[in-house]
């Protein structure tokens, strides 16, 4: 701790430590150089490098698939390098600037518009049109995020979505019927109220309030369900300052401010532990959290709808992409072949069964497959079928991170009771319009 932390910038670091850092960097880059060097020479152009951030079961399953590919494709060498997913874009940017990008990188879908600007990103539009790929087998939410202005820049790597995970025991204790597939947001609010008990510090639901994209996409699902849109169809103006925007924000505000039935989590980390400790009745979250709830009997239900709107039980999905970088025609070909194999139905099925991750292809999610998935992770198949409720993607524009920030501030200020939904919507819309105008 203390002096030896991230906070140190080169300006503040004493020379001795800077030297140590430098030596460490040299050591690492020497290793990296060895790695890429041997990769490039052994077997010539048939060697590719892939940057991925899998850990645990995912890492094991991925390593197995890579080994299988190498065994069935003699002469091809796929070397994978672990990179924390949160930092892959930074690292890829640096590698692109240095003229030595990986052949394939796992990149968050929310980065897609910015990734499309990177030099060296291979356009896959014609590749995915091949009949053998069966591109339409990928969920529409995935395809949307892999496509920027009509140009396909990636192949789906992982998909998730938001649904409601609820604690069955707490519902029973409150004598409440379990949520059904036709439920509505007013029902959710009423349930949350009845599940709240300040005396034993029990909350009906929770919401993440760091103001980041995690705050924002939860609200966007509500906005869509209420029949609203984030931007207009040409992505030139904010469209969320609407009746739907108001309905969705008011719903959240009722729970956070009026009923105090919502635990607000600014750290984006506490809510899962609390749910697992039986302190929270319902959570809007994704399949990744399920394995963190071994101590409670939970159920999963699709998102509620807003009565009187045409939004239905829409949800939002956050797919990530495999992106191919240009290191010469033959390496691009090797990389494309590998990524298409990796995302073919057989491999998708294997990966999902081993990891509990949702299958990225529609055809894989058969009844038998869903039962197998549920055996390992109860009710995860609800998330799989819920992918059918993903009807749209977030705006695929480079300024989205800035727009997200403006919306995040709006949501947090309403939930903390610092502003009313109406003025907050208007202020955020004005800010977003300014951002959109600035970007031309």
């Amino acid at each position, binding site marked *: *701790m203390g002096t030896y932390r*991230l906070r140190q910038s080169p300006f503040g670091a004493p020379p001795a430590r800077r030297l140590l850092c430098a030596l460490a960097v040299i050591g690492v880059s020497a290793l990296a150089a060895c790695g890429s060097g041997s990769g490039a020479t052994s077997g010539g152009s048939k060697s590719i490098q892939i940057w991925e951030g899998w850990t645990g079961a995912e890492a094991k399953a991925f390593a197995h698939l890579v080994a299988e590919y190498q065994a069935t494709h003699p002469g091809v060498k796929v070397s994978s390098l672990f990179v924390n997913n949160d930092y892959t874009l930074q690292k890829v940017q640096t590698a692109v600037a240095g003229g030595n990008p990986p052949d394939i990188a796992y990149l968050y879908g929310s980065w897609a518009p910015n990734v499309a600007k990177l*030099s060296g990103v291979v356009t896959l539009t014609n590749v995915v049109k091949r009949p053998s790929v069966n591109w339409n087998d990928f969920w529409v939410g995935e395809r949307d995020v892999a496509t920027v202005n009509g140009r396909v820049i990636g192949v789906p790597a992982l998909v998730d979505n938001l649904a409601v995970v609820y604690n069955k025991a707490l519902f029973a204790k409150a004598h409440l019927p379990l949520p059904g597939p036709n439920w509505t947001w007013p029902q959710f609010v009423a349930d949350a109220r009845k599940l709240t008990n300040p005396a034993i510090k029990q909350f009906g639901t929770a919401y993440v309030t*760091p*103001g980041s994209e995690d705050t924002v996409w939860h609200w966007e699902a509500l906005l869509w369900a209420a029949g609203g849109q984030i931007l207009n169809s040409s992505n030139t103006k904010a469209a969320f300052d609407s009746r739907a925007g108001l309905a969705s924000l008011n719903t959240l505000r009722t729970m956070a401010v009026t009923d105090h039935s919502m635990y607000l989590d600014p750290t984006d980390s506490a809510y899962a532990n609390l749910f697992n400790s039986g302190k929270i009745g319902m959570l809007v979250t994704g399949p990744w959290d399920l394995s963190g709830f071994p101590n409670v009997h939970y159920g999963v239900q699709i998102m509620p709808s807003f009565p009187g709107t045409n939004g239905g039980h829409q949800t939002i999905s956050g797919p990530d992409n495999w992106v191919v970088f240009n290191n010469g025609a033959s390496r691009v070909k090797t990389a494309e072949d590998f990524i298409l194999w990796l995302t073919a139905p057989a491999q998708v099925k294997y990966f999902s069964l081993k990891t509990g991750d949702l299958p990225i292809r529609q055809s894989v999610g058969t009844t038998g497959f869903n039962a197998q998935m549920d055996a390992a992770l109860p009710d995860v198949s609800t998330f799989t079928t819920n992918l059918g409720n993903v009807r749209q993607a977030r705006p695929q524009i480079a300024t989205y991170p800035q727009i997200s920030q403006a919306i995040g501030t709006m949501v947090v200020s309403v939930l*903390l009771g610092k502003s009313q939904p109406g003025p907050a919507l208007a202020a955020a819309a004005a800010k977003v319009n300014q951002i959109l105008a600035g970007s031309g």
Partner: protein
Amino acid sequence: MTASVALRRSGRQGLSNPRGRRGRVESLTGWAFVTPATVIIGLFGAAPIIWSLVLSFTNDNGLTSGSAFIGVRNYKALAHDPVVSQAIEHTVVYTALFVPGTMLVGLFLAVAMNRKIRFMWFYRTAAYATMAISTISEALVFIWLFDPSFGIVNYIFSLLHIPQQAFLNSPGEALYVIVVMTIWGWSGFAVVIYLAALQGIPQDLVEAAAIDGAGRWETFRRITLPLLSPASLFLAVWLTINALQLFDEVYLSTRGGPLGATTVLVYYLFEQAFQTNFNFGYASAIAYLLFIVILVVTAIQFRVGRRFTYYRS
């Protein structure tokens, strides 16, 4: 450490500086020793610093190849960016509380530990342990301590009939929680520095004061504190530089929120470069603004500090 080396240099200038052949060999040997380090520091320390200065005059976004030179436009934008002035305000408030806070806590603990009692090794280890704990663990612990609903701090408040606080959920309180968190984290460092300085205080001076009839407080104020002044100056400079570069605790606990209440300069820089805009040019300009602020503040500290600092020859 840099500071104390620099301050002592004047005392070493009297050492013989051998000339002639032997001198040349020695100086060559010296160069042989420092050249690898110089090259490495130049490559990985100085070059990025210079490069970021160049970047600060461009609109580089790290994505597209090629960026345009836009002169001082980034620096002009800084002056009109409301978030920058807010970030400066947060940084200054944080520094103004963190630096004296850490020094006082460190001094108090060091004085308390500068005696011969049983299990002293344990207390000293415990105090220094805050340095050995990683920031992420520290942040996680404090997140739970200060959790509005489940935290022990609000529990204690309820026992004392103090109203419940929102802490990290409150734009008015979050920064102060981070101040407390970091004072805890850094106090071990201040303890070590002060403890070392306390043990360097000659006992004959303390005894002489006692013979002259000085009480404990008088001795502490007239003898101990002045003799600790070099350590205090070092701590003030070192802690200030680190405070102005606050980042990890913010990143790990509040992400600059709620509603930007804990967005300090380095966090804003990070956001500009890697989170929202990929605006490397603008982020570099913020980095240089911070660099200049640190340079000026440190210079003032040394200048003012010299007046209050007492060095024994």
